[in-house]
């Protein structure tokens, strides 16, 4: 088996732009084009253009597509309207999180069609799980990872940029909705989703159209400050927005209730049956969370300048009370920030005396509610 990294349809574009590339889940992806801080600030104040072609698309069709997805995922897929999207998760039989997902409903009731978008690092796991779980359902699971390139335009200028390139009704397109349309002459699924905390769009297109679309977006966006943006700033953007990342805040060792995301689990579904994979374990986890609160996911803001990293201990009174799951210098706040799981007793915003063990030194941190950053609407 070849271990050469996979290249996206935009690989030549990234190299022409002089991007610093990095291996990410087996893909060679742009980490940054210049300064990741400048890219971050551009997305917050103007707009950034991302290549997210490493994400894993899986199409589900067939008469029993809804029943199958309700059985396979923790959410109530039947309540998603046509053209809408939903954040959900797939868990194993023990309730452990296999991945967090966005499910787009594309087809009407007479021709059910859903697109499940998995994280690059978990796409194969999700595909295998869905394929196995489809047994007994009149539904088809199709690996569409190679069928799409994915471009994301994120930031306050993104609606204006996109409007100049499409006749699609963007004003009618709500957050977490998607519709088929044409952008710069390229057929695209236009979704108002993203992972940056900003308004923005994700455009699923054929790989052969990716370069043309990238060029058109850059041309339309450059006058208003659109810049290419890499995975490094994507991570600081999502961190400021308090959004979980698989492998950091979400793992197979945690149930959605342990991750503070129990609300995504729907025990009652619009299906023939309310049975779904992990149901019994999740019901027990929900009860545990009520009686013995698990560690809570909180935000930490540094008093000093040293940056907490994933895996560092959170301490209070010389004792370990939690663990950092993600940390980075926040370009928006101008201070290091972190997301951490901490014992419930120390989780309230404003709790005094909390620190992070940074290579042996206990640096003081303020406990805050997530997110660190919320855009003005």
């Amino acid at each position, binding site marked *: 088996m070849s271990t050469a990294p996979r290249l996206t349809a935009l690989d030549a574009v990234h190299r022409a732009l002089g991007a*610093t590339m990095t291996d990410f889940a087996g893909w060679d992806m742009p980490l940054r084009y210049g*300064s*990741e801080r400048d890219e971050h600030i551009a997305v917050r104040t103007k707009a950034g253009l991302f290549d997210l072609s490493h994400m894993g698309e899986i199409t589900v069709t067939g008469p029993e597509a809804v029943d199958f997805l309700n059985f396979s995922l923790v959410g109530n897929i039947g309540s998603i309207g046509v053209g809408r999207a939903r954040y959900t998760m797939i868990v194993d039989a023990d309730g452990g999180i296999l991945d967090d997902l966005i499910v787009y409903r594309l087809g009407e009731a007479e021709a059910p069609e859903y697109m499940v978008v998995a994280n690059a690092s978990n796409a194969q796991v999700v595909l295998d799980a869905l394929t196995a779980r489809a047994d007994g359902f009149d539904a088809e699971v199709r690996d569409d990872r190679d069928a799409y390139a994915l471009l994301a335009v994120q930031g306050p200028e993104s609606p204006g940029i996109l409007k100049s390139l499409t006749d699609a009704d963007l004003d009618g397109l709500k957050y977490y909705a998607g519709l088929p349309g044409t952008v710069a002459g390229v057929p695209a699924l236009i979704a108002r989703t993203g992972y940056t905390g900003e308004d923005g769009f994700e455009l699923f297109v054929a790989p052969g159209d990716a370069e043309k679309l990238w060029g058109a977006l850059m041309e339309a966006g450059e006058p208003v400050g659109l810049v290419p943006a890499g995975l*490094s700033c994507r991570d600081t953007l999502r961190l400021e927005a308090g959004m979980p990342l698989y492998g950091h805040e979400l793992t197979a060792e945690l149930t959605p209730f342990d991750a503070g995301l129990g609300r995504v689990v729907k025990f009652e579904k619009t299906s023939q049956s309310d049975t779904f994979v992990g149901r019994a374990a999740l019901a027990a986890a929900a009860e545990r969370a009520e009686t013995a609160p698990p560690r809570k996911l909180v935000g930490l803001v540094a008093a000093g*300048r040293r*940056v907490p990293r994933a895996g560092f201990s959170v301490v209070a009174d010389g004792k370990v009370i939690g663990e950092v799951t993600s940390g980075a*210098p926040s370009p928006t706040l101008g201070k290091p920030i972190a997301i951490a799981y901490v014992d419930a007793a120390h989780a309230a915003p404003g709790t005094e005396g909390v620190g992070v063990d940074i290579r042996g030194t206990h640096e003081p941190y303020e406990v805050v509610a997530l997110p660190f950053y919320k855009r003005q609407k």
Partner: protein
Amino acid sequence: MSNPQQLRYSKEHEWLSAVVEGVATVGITEHAANALGDVVFAQLPEVGETVTAGETCGELESTKSVSDLYSPVTGEVVESNQDVVEDPSLVNSAPFEGGWLFKVRVADEPQDLLSADEYTEFSGS
């Protein structure tokens, strides 16, 4: 990117200026600064501290990682760059100039530092 001819370079990507009246200046190369990404925190050796060639004497923190800072030379630190402590991005914007890190009274100069051309070949840039 070009590495100034008048400097010498370590394989840990520090540069060392010529020794003037016993004192030399230390920084990291543009190649190293680019590899780190945006530097956001610099812990530099303090005045009076003794640094040893090839050993760690501080750390540079960037968006994604923290890297040890090695000294290319042995001696006593006579100045650390407070401008960099205040504004670590100087390491990225001017690695060979305003982004210098510390000055050291040289006690022992290693013989294995690289010339600019050797370093360019070593680092590939």
